[in-house]
């Protein structure tokens, strides 16, 4: 169980990136966070990860406060962030230094097989394609079996086919241990395919503006009418979140353009 209790973040330069974020996430739940650029999505994820500390409020995992990176919380970034001096297998094994060598190698091999990259075990990260590198990053994050996995626009640098492929793959991996997934994305389709709950954020200060629950059965059919219905709801919510900014907006953000321009 992950709990955010009135989390706020003010950067030293005075930017109020987050304000009063309260959220409970049940084990196994997949939450997507969408919202315009600069509304604090990355800030929120970094606070949950323990890389940054919130200025107000508390973050709890199973009742334990998170003040620094926590063993139950893993994170995947927009870039794979593999360590270039380690082979693919060593990268996957990076978080298991405490285990005996044999066991470490076995678990890394299993994780690599799970993401379909066994034959790349001894390759250097520079020899991977973008999609393969991100798969290795996913394997590395999942190998310590976190209870919460945070993903900050994990597939946004990939082409549409690879992205759809990795979304399915991620769900597949998620089904093994069913950790909480918190996913920041700019892709509404991605949010609807993956998430049980979609939080729409709004900037200055970053707040949760609307929450849309989606009970579409899995696996989800991207072509179905129900899918389209949820997607429209999310787009409409995004539209509203941008149409009425908290501060006076001097641009002509009309509500019909909003959905198209929300990123």
């Amino acid at each position, binding site marked *: 169980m992950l709990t955010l209790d009135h989390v706020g973040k003010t950067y030293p330069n005075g930017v109020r990136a987050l304000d009063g974020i309260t959220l409970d996430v049940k084990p196994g739940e997949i939450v997507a966070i969408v919202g315009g650029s600069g509304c604090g999505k990355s800030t929120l994820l970094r606070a949950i*990860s323990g*890389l940054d500390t919130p200025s107000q409020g508390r973050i709890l995992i199973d009742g334990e406060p998170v003040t*620094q*990176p926590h*063993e139950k919380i*893993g*994170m995947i*970034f927009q*870039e794979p*962030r593999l*360590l*270039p*001096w*380690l082979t693919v297998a060593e990268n996957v094994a*990076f*978080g298991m*230094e405490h285990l005996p060598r044999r066991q470490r190698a076995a678990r890394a091999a299993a994780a690599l097989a799970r993401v379909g990259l066994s034959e790349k075990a001894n390759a*250097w*990260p*520079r020899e991977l394609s973008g999609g393969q590198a991100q798969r290795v990053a996913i394997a590395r994050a999942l190998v*310590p079996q976190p209870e919460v996995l945070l993903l900050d626009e994990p597939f946004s640098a990939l082409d549409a086919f690879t992205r759809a492929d990795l979304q399915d793959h991620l769900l597949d991996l998620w089904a093994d241990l069913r950790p909480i997934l918190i996913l920041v994305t700019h892709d509404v389709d991605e949010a609807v395919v993956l998430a049980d709950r979609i939080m729409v954020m709004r900037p200055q200060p970053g707040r949760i503006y609307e929450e849309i629950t989606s009970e579409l059965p899995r696996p989800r059919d991207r072509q179905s009418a129900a899918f389209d219905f949820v997607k429209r709801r999310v787009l409409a919510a995004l539209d509203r979140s941008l149409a009425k900014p908290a501060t006076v907006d001097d641009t002509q953000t009309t509500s019909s353009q909003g959905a198209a321009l929300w990123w």
Partner: protein
Amino acid sequence: MSLVQMTATAEPATADKKQRKSGLGRYTRPALGLLLPLALAAGWEAVVHFHLASGRLVPPPSVIYATFAELAATGELQRNALATLARVAAGFGLGVVAGTFLGALTGYSGFMFRLLDPTLQALRAIPSIAWIPLFILWLGIFETSKVVLIAVGVFFPVYLGVTGAVASVDRKIVEVGRLFRLSGVGMVRRILLPAVLPSYVIALRSGLGLGWMFVVAAEFMGASEGLGFLLVDGQQLGKPAQIVAAIVAFAVIGKLTDWLIVLITAPFLRWEDRVRTDTVED
């Protein structure tokens, strides 16, 4: 030139390059660099051989070789080369330890950087040879002052390389270490060290280069043995062949020690994503 023309001319050029690469092969390609010096040496040998020049001040390769062989046979060469090597080794060791320590400190801590770097940069602005008289006054004319001078020469490139490399370690990679909750030691060993290693090797190599430069200056200030002594001795006794032989010895040993650094560190740098892989062993 129009774009069409440019692409038209560019294409055969790249195709040509590819062909030549595979044609010359891995053994003949390094040999290409030997062509010019060998041609010059042979040319000068011929000029002296046919009495077009006396070769008294610029001895031909055969005379240099004979001198070299003679120095080697008497053990002079080895004794002097060892003396120089020992000085460089001691100075290099000292310079590297100090440069690495202070570089890591200032690279890691912004406070230390602001505290120490201005002073070190001011010292760096002094041409290091200018220290010689002071070092002699302080440390005497024997080994200590020589080793310290070499250490000063080695220190600055190493310090600059390390402080720059440590300070510019990618924050994103450091965050990966933090996410996996590495301890301070773990962070240094598993993230910082490997990340700075490529620049560190470059810093060590330029440090060593300066070490070899400064050992000559150190031996000029009065030495009874060493390759620098052979230089001075050759000048005073009018033996240009001995001077050139000593220079050749410097070149060979300098290159060998540099190559040693490359050789030792190469296994740790195989991961590097290089534009050109053929510059590694040059």
